[in-house]
């Protein structure tokens, strides 16, 4: 006999549950958290480094580094003397809530005010997995081309903040910032857009002020 069984169940139910747990743990410890996503080489790590460098006297930071292999990025934070956890996904293309939960349980959360979780460099998979962070950031760089929003819509849709990085290279690269911004507005009207250069520091203060504002709101 042939039967159709109604299910209506989310495939990510389990991940969602753990993401809620992560959110609770972070909130209880008053940790303000960011899921930093973006393509490999978009400048996620330098963006986080630069932010910590500027605000290290003002806030206590922590970092979780998600990479497929190696501890190269985690090493870069050693100079700040802050808690860093490296998660190796061992081939996995994204961080899931369970990996992040294990990560935060290995951090002294009571000593952290702002936590950056750097996801695996990838514009597809990380967008699908909630990890329990307060805000999602996508770091996109002008060297990637201006059509990233229409090619990877979900990433921009789930991101509360879009950082357009490497604007110091504008004289050498054809990139229509207004077009890029318009595409984000269309797909995700509430995403906050900031263009900057982590390398030269150009317009970086806009992000710093925005971050301080977010932190104030939270208090």
């Amino acid at each position, binding site marked *: *006999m*042939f*039967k*159709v*069984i*109604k*299910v*209506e*169940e*989310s*495939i*990510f*139910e*389990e*991940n969602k549950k753990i993401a809620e747990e992560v959110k609770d743990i972070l909130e209880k410890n008053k940790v303000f958290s960011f899921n930093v996503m973006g393509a490999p080489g978009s400048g996620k790590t330098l963006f986080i480094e630069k932010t910590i460098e500027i605000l290290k006297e003002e806030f206590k930071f922590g970092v979780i580094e998600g990479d497929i292999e190696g501890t190269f990025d985690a090493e870069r934070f050693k100079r700040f003397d802050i808690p860093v956890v490296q998660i190796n996904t061992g081939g*996995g*293309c*994204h961080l*899931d809530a369970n990996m992040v939960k294990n990560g935060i349980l290995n951090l002294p959360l009571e000593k952290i005010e702002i936590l950056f979780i750097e996801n695996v460099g990838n514009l*597809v*998979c990380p*967008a*699908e*997995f*909630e990890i329990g962070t307060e805000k999602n950031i996508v770091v996109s760089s002008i060297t990637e081309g201006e059509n990233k929003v229409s090619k*990877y*819509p*979900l990433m921009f*849709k*789930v991101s509360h903040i879009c950082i357009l990085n490497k604007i110091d290279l504008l004289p050498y690269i054809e990139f229509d910032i207004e077009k890029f911004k318009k595409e984000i507005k269309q*797909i995700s009207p509430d995403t906050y857009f900031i263009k900057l250069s982590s390398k030269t520091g150009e317009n970086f203060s806009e992000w710093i002020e925005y971050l301080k504002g977010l932190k104030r709101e939270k208090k």
Partner: protein
Amino acid sequence: MHELSVVNNILKIVERVCEENNAKKVLKINIKINPYSCLDEENLNFIFSSITKEKEIYKDTKIEVKRSLNPSEREYIVENIEIEV
């Protein structure tokens, strides 16, 4: 590559439903996703059949992906499962 995680999670749901309903065969799994997701139906079916190839119950299973505005941004929903009992 997240298709593998997706397939594993689908399987967990399907196995449970099969047990509850004494299914002999799974014919179709209907999935609903939001229009912005990058999920490839062909790839999903390929991974599903690779993982389940030892199991008779999944021999003729097809996964069908429907894009709909209803599921929230990050949600994939198993709408229903067509089985033979």
